[in-house]
């Protein structure tokens, strides 16, 4: 059993999304993107009248960085059940098409349609022909091989239609052109025939020019509307500035394919390259009907929402509590803050996938710090907390980070850590004399020591995020009666200033976590040789010793 009583790991393990993974869509921005596309589809659908015309074409662009969830969004839209009644989608991943020419692009477009769609349209076409055959149109009967002996054997056209649909017999399409001429265009008849013969996705033999291809795609869209009352969506993922791709896009846009939405998925970099490569295509993209903007798709809030959605979706027992959500969100925040490399959804999903597996192996009920720490250590062995001198493991970092949300506790922990650090320095001979200020806390000074040159230094720790704004306020707080050659004020207030005798040293979160981590090791007598050197570096980094 996985954490949170989940039956399976909710996070996908593949580096890029699959149709199955894309069933789940979390995040405010991604859902806004989804609704914009749905709105475009709905708008077009509402405007469609009896016959599909070139007025019924829409262009949609989705532009965002790699790993931001564009492909996920596209596949999610393709797989939406609520769209299955009014749209047919062909998803084309251009990165998989090489060499890139008009024929390979057309082949990919045909392959982008699902088997379910081909079955559905074939069924409609077969029953359309059956109706004609029932009206005693001879050439329609011929399609079904329906003859005298079939009547004797009491076989009906419905039986024959079923046999064609279950691939028991191959329809005779030799007379299909004469049967449908007048009612359908030559391209529509060719596609009609291909679908009936079961080789729709191999319709590339008699295609010679880009015009032929556009004609065929238009025919597919027309048949989709005529027989299924569905609009056609062509999703071109990984769009780039390659010449053949741009020619294809330009041709599709210029042709105003009937009842069709062309959805182009690309990165800002590709968009810029298209501008340089082909101004004409760029101009068309600029005039897209909908520009889906996933701005902020890599923000912390969005990433947390997406990650939580995977668990919520798989939580059949509905036992994933708000507190647990908050707990995971806090852990994600630490990873997000500390590792710039992970500020994208793809990397975060990978971390949580591995963390889930690790937690399952260790039998824990939640994703704990250890699971994340093990993941980062095993999956990304080279990573360290940025700027950490003590090499704090992520698990410890998360624990300390969480406990330091309270200023008072943080101040007390940092104060003790500084005392421990200087005690350690004294034991190692880096500090000549150490004097703790027991009972003199009113002075604001926490510690006095003599450095190796004999200079008497007084240290004060002042943790106060909000109230202190100026150096004068700091000086007022240290109402010291202690005499010393030099004062060092360790703070996190980001107030700057110095006098001849006093200097302020600002410490960021990482530095304070380093101190607290050292302190914990010191208390537990766990300081190793490596730690010893690091501890002295840490002391120097805050101008002690």
């Amino acid at each position, binding site marked *: 059993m996985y954490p949170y009583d989940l039956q399976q790991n909710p996070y996908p393990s593949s580096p890029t999304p699959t149709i199955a993974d894309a069933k789940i869509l979390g995040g405010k921005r991604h859902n806004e993107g989804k609704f914009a596309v749905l709105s475009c589809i709905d708008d077009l659908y509402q405007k469609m009248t009896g016959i599909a015309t070139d007025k019924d074409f829409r262009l949609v662009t989705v*532009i*965002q*960085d*790699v790993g931001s969830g564009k492909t996920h969004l596209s596949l999610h839209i393709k797989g939406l059940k609520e769209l299955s009644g009014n749209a047919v989608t062909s998803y084309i991943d251009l990165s998989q098409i090489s*060499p890139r*020419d008009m024929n390979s692009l057309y082949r990919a477009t045909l392959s982008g349609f699902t088997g379910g769609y081909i079955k559905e349209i074939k069924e409609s076409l077969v029953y359309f022909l059956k109706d004609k055959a029932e009206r005693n149109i001879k050439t329609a009967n011929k399609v079904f091989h329906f003859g005298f002996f079939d009547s004797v054997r009491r076989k009906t056209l419905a039986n024959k239609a079923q046999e064609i649909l279950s691939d028991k017999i191959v329809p005779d399409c030799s007379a299909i052109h004469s049967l449908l001429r007048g009612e359908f265009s030559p391209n529509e008849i060719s596609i009609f025939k291909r679908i009936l013969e079961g080789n729709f996705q191999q319709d590339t033999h008699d295609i*010679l*020019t*880009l*015009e032929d291809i556009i004609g065929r795609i238009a025919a597919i869209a027309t048949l989709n509307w005529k027989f299924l009352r569905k609009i056609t969506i062509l999703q071109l993922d990984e769009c780039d500035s390659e010449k053949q791709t741009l020619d294809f896009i330009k041709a599709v846009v210029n042709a105003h394919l009937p009842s069709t939405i062309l959805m182009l998925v690309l*990165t*800002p*970099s*590709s*968009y*810029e390259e298209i*501008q340089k490569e082909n101004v004409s295509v760029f101009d068309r993209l*600029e005039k897209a009907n909908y*520009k889906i*903007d996933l*701005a*902020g798709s*890599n*923000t*912390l809030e969005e990433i947390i929402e997406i990650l939580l959605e995977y668990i919520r979706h798989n939580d059949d027992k509905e036992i994933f509590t708000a507190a647990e959500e908050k707990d995971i969100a806090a852990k994600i925040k630490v990873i997000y803050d500390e590792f*710039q*490399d992970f*500020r994208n959804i793809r*990397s975060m999903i990978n971390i949580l996938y591995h963390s889930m597996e690790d937690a399952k192996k260790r039998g824990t009920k939640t994703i704990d710090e250890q699971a994340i720490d093990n993941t980062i250590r095993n999956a990304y062995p080279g990573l360290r907390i940025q700027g950490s001198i003590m090499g704090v493991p992520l698990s410890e970092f998360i624990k300390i980070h969480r406990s330091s949300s309270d200023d008072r506790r943080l101040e007390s922990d940092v104060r003790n850590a500084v005392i421990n650090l200087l005690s350690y320095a004294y034991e190692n001979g880096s500090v000549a004399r150490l004097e703790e200020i027991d009972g003199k806390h009113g002075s604001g000074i926490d510690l006095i020591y003599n450095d190796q040159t004999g200079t008497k230094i007084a240290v004060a720790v002042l943790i106060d995020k909000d109230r202190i704004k100026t150096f004068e306020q700091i000086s007022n707080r240290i109402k010291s009666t202690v005499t010393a050659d030099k004062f060092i004020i360790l703070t996190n207030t*980001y107030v*700057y*200033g110095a006098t001849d005798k006093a200097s302020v040293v*600002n410490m960021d979160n990482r530095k304070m976590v380093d101190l607290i981590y050292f302190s914990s090791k010191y208390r537990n007598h766990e300081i190793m040789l490596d730690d010893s050197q690091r501890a002295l570096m840490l002391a120097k980094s805050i101008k002690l010793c």
Partner: protein
Amino acid sequence: MSAEEKLTQRIFLSGSTGVKKTDLRKEFAEEDIDAILEKAVTQGDIYIDKKGTAYHCWHKEYYLQSLLNSDAKFRIIYDAIKSLEQSINKTSDALAKSLESSTNDIILSLSKLDKENNGSSVVDKGLSADFTTQLEQFKTDFDNSVSNYANSIGWVEFGKIRNELCTKHDISNEEFYLLVEQLVNKYDKKYELSTGGYEGITIRGLVHGFVRCI
């Protein structure tokens, strides 16, 4: 439209299939099409070639496609050349990146040397009050440049704004990117980076050469 333009248009419309010269002769019976075609061929607008037993004319936009469609050997050679071209492009890209990286290393070394000599650089200033002020001033100009140079969806290449800001703030390219990095880290909810481009900030080993304000 002149006869020459009409003829060129007619040939253009025939696409990669081309049009028979004899058909053109019939269609443009009143014109001296040999002279017009000769001129167009000399200018490189039209190509004439034998297809089967007849001479066909193609517009320059479609002649290559026609050859690719009809001549398997040509197509193989064309593909081979394309593949070679791609390979050369990749190699030259790699070379350019390597050169860029070496240049950056040299700049970094020089900067370190300079820092050792003079004791002041953006990195050194990282924790000072001066630096905070400098970062805030830089932010104002940076935001202005982004909004001035951004495309319709808000993205802008760092390369487009770098020179202007370096001149204005009297900073080196390296210092520009250090400031940008600090800015993006400090205001991570305000800026968004995207991969690509020829220069920028490296994250996960990828050059992020585009930025926009959210």
